[in-house]
Each structure stands twice: as C-alpha cells, then as structure tokens.
C-alpha cells in the first residue's frame, strides 16, 4: 500500500469502532485496524467508548445525546485523528456534535475541533493518507451501495470506488439508484418496519438486477438490512445469492469470515 503524501510521519489514530461493528461484526474493526496500520498510522482503541448517541439524537432525546457526545469528545480529542468505519456515526461526530452542543461554548469548541479531525475510514485512507491502491485480490463482481450519511453528509462517493477499482480480480458494476436509502434508518426500521421493508425490497431487487455476486457498503446498519433482505429472498423466493460485506473487509483482504448473515453451513438458513 502506498501513501505518498503523509501529512505527519506516524499519526495517532483513535478508532471509533461503532456499536454495530463491535456487536455484530468485529472483523470490520480488525479490517479497519489493518488498513490504518498499513497506511502508516498508529491505531488506538479507547476502551470505554460505547455509542456516538445517534439513536437518542434521532429520537428527540437531546439530553442523553449530549451526555454521550461529551463522553465521546473527551475520549477522542487527544488523537491526531478519529476514524470511524461508518459514514453514519462519522457524520454524527463531524456534522451533528457541533450543532448539538452549540449552546455550550466550551463544548462547542471541543466538538468543532474533534469534528475537524474525524473521518470515515475509507475517505480517511483516500483523502488524508493518499492511499490509491490496496495490495489484495478479490475474485468477483462487486456492486456498491452509497450509505446516506456518508454520501450526503460527508461526500463519500468516489473514494471507495477508486480503491475497489485498484483491486485485481474485482469487477465493479454500478448499482442503479445507489444513492437511494436502503430503508434502515436506525430506529426507523423498528418503528415503521413495513415502509422499511418496502424500501429494502426495492434495493434488493436493484442489487440482484446488477448480476453482482458481492454487495459492499460502508455502514453496518445498511449492510445488516440489505443482507437480511437478500437472504430472506433467497430462502423464500429462490433469489440469486449475493455475498454482503463491509467494504473494509474487501479492502483489507480479510474475507475469511462468512459474509454478513451467512453461517458456517453456507447454504440455506
């Protein structure tokens, strides 16, 4: 892996793992560590991190959100960079913390300082560390879903595609309506499951229509949703199987674990 224009020799990166990666898919966390180290970073993982507070924030609970935001700021403000393998949680820290804490000048300042040094993983590798290719191989046809927060809050669009295109054996096909929400939406999928299902059904049909054997994205929430729908369609309607993974797993060449939602029996559930 080359990193031509490293701004500081060996920056200290605090990895904000996110609760979904921590709980559902630790392999994404290890992929992130591996990618960051290969990009010349020293990675540290504050032990007492929990959640960025987004579920509370989007449920209208500002008080709890502020508490969690302050905890996160205090934990991560000492690093050169904070990196998050999620556009959604990254967007929360980068875009929403300063707004959330705007009435508390000291915290607002600290929130802005943290925001300025917080990045989603793939955009950090590409934009900050200048990574342009990764030394791995992936044999398959891949399509990529743009998670909403990463795309619209953080402007992540070309970076993952650029890195994926650098991988020998990997053929990237565009997903129609890649920029349309998959229907996850955090608590939305619990509060309005029927609408959420309709949206993810549309998304799954688009994914299947590409002919790709692998679906990648940069956010665990969207991935769980899409993987869950694709697998159910396979079980109930015999839909074509699609392997679903976090983009970091493929970029890091760490694809030994079964894809999201797949078990050791690899066949039907």
């Amino acid at each position, binding site marked *: 892996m080359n990193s031509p224009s490293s701004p500081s020799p060996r920056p200290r990166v605090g990895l904000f793992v996110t*609760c979904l990666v*921590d*709980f*559902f898919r*630790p392999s994404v*966390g290890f992929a992130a560590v591996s990618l960051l180290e290969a990009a010349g970073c020293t990675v540290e993982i504050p*032990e*007492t991190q*929990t*959640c960025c507070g987004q*579920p*509370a*924030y*989007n*449920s*209208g*609970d*500002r008080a*709890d959100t502020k*508490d*969690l935001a302050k*905890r996160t700021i205090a934990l991560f403000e000492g690093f050169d960079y904070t990196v998050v393998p999620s556009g959604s949680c990254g967007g929360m820290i980068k875009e929403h913390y300063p707004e959330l804490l705007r009435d508390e000048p000291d915290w607002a300042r600290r929130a802005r300082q943290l925001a300025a040094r917080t990045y989603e993983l793939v955009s950090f590798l590409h934009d900050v560390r200048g990574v342009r290719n990764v030394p791995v191989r992936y044999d398959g046809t891949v399509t990529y879903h743009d998670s*909403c*927060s990463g795309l*619209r*809050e953080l402007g992540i669009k070309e970076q993952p595609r650029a890195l994926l295109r650098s991988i020998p054996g990997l053929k990237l096909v565009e997903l129609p*309506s890649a920029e*349309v*929400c998959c*229907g*996850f*939406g*955090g608590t*939305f*999928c*619990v*509060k*309005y*499951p*029927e*609408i*959420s*299902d*309709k*949206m*993810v*059904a549309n998304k799954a049909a688009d994914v299947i229509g590409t002919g790709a054997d692998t679906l990648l994205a940069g956010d665990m929430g969207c991935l*769980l949703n899409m993987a*869950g*729908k694709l*697998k*159910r369609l396979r*079980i109930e309607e015999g839909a074509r199987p699609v392997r679903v993974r976090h983009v970091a797993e493929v970029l890091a060449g760490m694809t030994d674990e079964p894809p999201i*939602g*797949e*078990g*050791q*029996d690899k066949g*039907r*559930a």
Partner: protein
Amino acid sequence: MQPTSHRFKENVRGALADAALQRALRFFDFGQAGLAERRRQAVAKLPEFEALREQAKAIKDHTLANLDWYLERFEKNCTAAGGHVHWCRDAEEARQTVLDICRRVGARTVTKGKSMIGEEIAINDFLAANGIEPIETDLGEYIVQIRHEAPSHIIAPAIHLTKDQVAASFRDTHKQFDPARPLEEPRALLDEARGVLRQKFLEADVGITGANFLIAETGSSIIVTNEGNGDLTQLLPKAHIVLASLEKVVPTLEDAATILRVLARSATGQEMSVYTTFSTGPRRPGDLDGPGEYHVILLDNGRSQLLGTEFQEILRCIRCGACMNNCPVYASIGGHAYGWVYPGPMGAVLTPSLIGIENARHLPNASTFCGRCESVCPMKIPLPKLMRHYREQEYERRLAPATVRMGLAAWAFLARRPALYHSMARLAAGVLGRLGRRHGSFFNLPLATGWTATREMPAPQGKTFQAQWRARQRSKGRR
C-alpha cells in the same frame, strides 16, 4: 379535509397493500425518467443553480424577517391597482370571505386552478355545501375531484392513479358520451377532459387560483402552470380570487425571477413552466378581457406563529415537490398515507406545524433521515433537522409511546456505563453468536419481529470487537 395523520400506520398498511397505488408509484423508480431524474438533468444544465439556491434562500429569509412590511406594501400596490386584499386569520375566515364574494357576484359555478391553500381551507366542500358548484380545472385535480379524493402530491395531484382508473372514472362521470368510446390512451382522456372543462371555463362566474408568489413591488400575484387552466380560470369569469398564504410574498420582480429559475427545474425538470402569469388587479379601462374584480385572500392559519421559531425555515417552501419526488418513503406509500394536505418531507414538517404535533406525530418520525430531500430542496430547507426538532418536542412532551421511551432510556443508561455496556454486549453477542453460528442469521427474533417478519436478522460473529481486542492486547503484553 379531516386529517388522518394520526392514523398514519394504518394508512401505510393500506397503501402498501393497494396494488393499483403500487403500480402507479412505479413512476418513482428513481433511476428512470421520473420527476427526480428530470430534475437532476435540468439542474445539471444550469451551472448557476447552486448560486441561485443560495440567493433564493436569502431572498426568503430577508422577506420573512420583514414580513409585516412587505405584506403591507403588497396590499398598498394591489389596492392601487384596483384589487382587494382580505386578511384572514384562519381557514374559517378565508372560506367565509370567498363565499361572500361568490354570493355578491351571484356565482353559480366557480372554476378553480390548483391551489394547496384551497385544499388547506377545504374550500370546495364549503362552496358545495352552500349551493355553489366548484370545478377543479387542472387535469389532475379534476380527476381526483370526480373521484371524491384528495390530491396525493402537491404538483401532480393524480400521481397515485393509473390511466385505467382515470378511464373508469371518466366513464362513470361523463355519461353524456358513448359508453363504448375508446379511452385506453392518455391522449383520449385528455381530449375528453379538455372538451368538458372548456365549457365550464366559459360558464363560470368566479375563478379561484392559488399563488406561487405575491410581489410587494407591484402588488401582483403569480401562478405557474403547464396546462393553461389557471389562466382560463382567472381571465374569463367576473371575479378572480387568489388564495395565498402570508409567506408567498417576495419583494421584487427580480426576486421572483431568481426563485422562478429554481422552481420549475426542481418541480418538473423544465427550465420554465409553460405559463408563468403575473396578475395585478382587475380589468383596466379599455381592456377587452380580464376579470371585473380581483381579490387576494391573505391567509395566516398558524404561519405567523412559526416566525421566530426553529420551524420558520419551512416558510421558505415554494411547493415545488422535489422533496417528495426524491423521497423513498413517499415513493413507497404515496401521498395519501400522510393523512392531510401536504405529503412527503415538506408535509412531515408543515403538517405538525399547522395541525399540531399531537395530531401528526408519526410524520416527522417516518423518515430515515437519508437527507435526499434537503439535498434537492431549492430553498435549502433543512427538512431532516426540522423533523428532528419535532421529535424533540414529542420526546419532551412525552407524546412518544412508553415502550419507545423506556427502550431508549435503558439503552442510554447502558451507553453511559462502558463497563456494564461492554459486558452486556459481550454476553448478548456470545449467546446470539452461538445460536446463529450455523445459519448465520435468525428467521425470527422475539424483540425484532417487525424486522424478521420480512428479513433475516444477521447473527453476530460471536465475540465483540472490544473483547477480542482486549484479549489480543493482553496476549501481546505477555509476550
């Protein structure tokens, strides 16, 4: 129109099960030649679009900050041109004012151009109840009127219908024609409606239109249409009544030009709609045509209360429909499920603003915050942020269901206690990981039945990241 926004969940189930509606909604297939794609192409053709958006926002912010002055100046110039301005606090006052004008000119029939304010004050039902026949003349509005429905979209009122449904309604309503006539093609439907409505235009005593803008500089009202129905509605009858809400005013013709440049592109992807009409007062001496009277209803209906609050920004809305055209929730359920006049993301903010959050609490919740609405809004209204503000009100006023509040409280309790949080996560991930190891996912999960009814729930890999990372650090330390 009686709101059904409080029954949103039932409305949604109905909409998702409505096969005809779902067929009609296929035009929202975002990748195809629908309104969203037409907008995208029009915007791509105008390099100045982003600068125009900024300016359009600045114009409206300026106007709202000086709204009293601009409304008074509008009134002065409108009156100088022979028009009448009627200030109405609420729907009831507006309805009564319209009725009084209609009665004074002896109106039997009233033609109507498309007006969302007309829907908001439910003017059609009121006129009909008072013996005056209202006739919608916009093709989409006419279709929903004869079906006794409400519009499902603010610029495409009949977008929830297929042409077969329209044909069936025409056969039911236009009994004067041969029942065996062919109506398969949209062209035949249009020609039939054109013929029927042409007669209505010529007979009407009063014409009612909405207003896309009012202009303080000139005292004019503006309507923007593609069909020309709004012009026939206002030109031919004895009196023209404009239904406008307070926030429609802009200072000058130049300001209107700026906003017009983003309006049609955002709405239908046209550079300009076919007809943009500036109307100022009644027929002038020597004029050969035009209405003898010109009235503007200035409706407040709660808007003045939004000024100075976090919700003021929704008053910049110019009703282009781009937010709903780009909304995956709207595309899934259509407009009627929102339960009142204004659907989609702008409706999810405006509806609770006008009828109360307690009557519409689902609307600002039923969004994934995907942000597409804000990204296409020509007036840069931060729609997700405003929806979030309503969620905050809902939370503070304890309107959210107890289960949601308790779940959230429990989770926040844990998230503030890292040691407890991590041991709970380790425990749950371990159990679920073991249970799901073979299949990789769950077909049914007790606390997530909404999800697992239609989706697998992927199983955790087993050990949490934090647990594995700490174990690794420890073993490194030992080496």
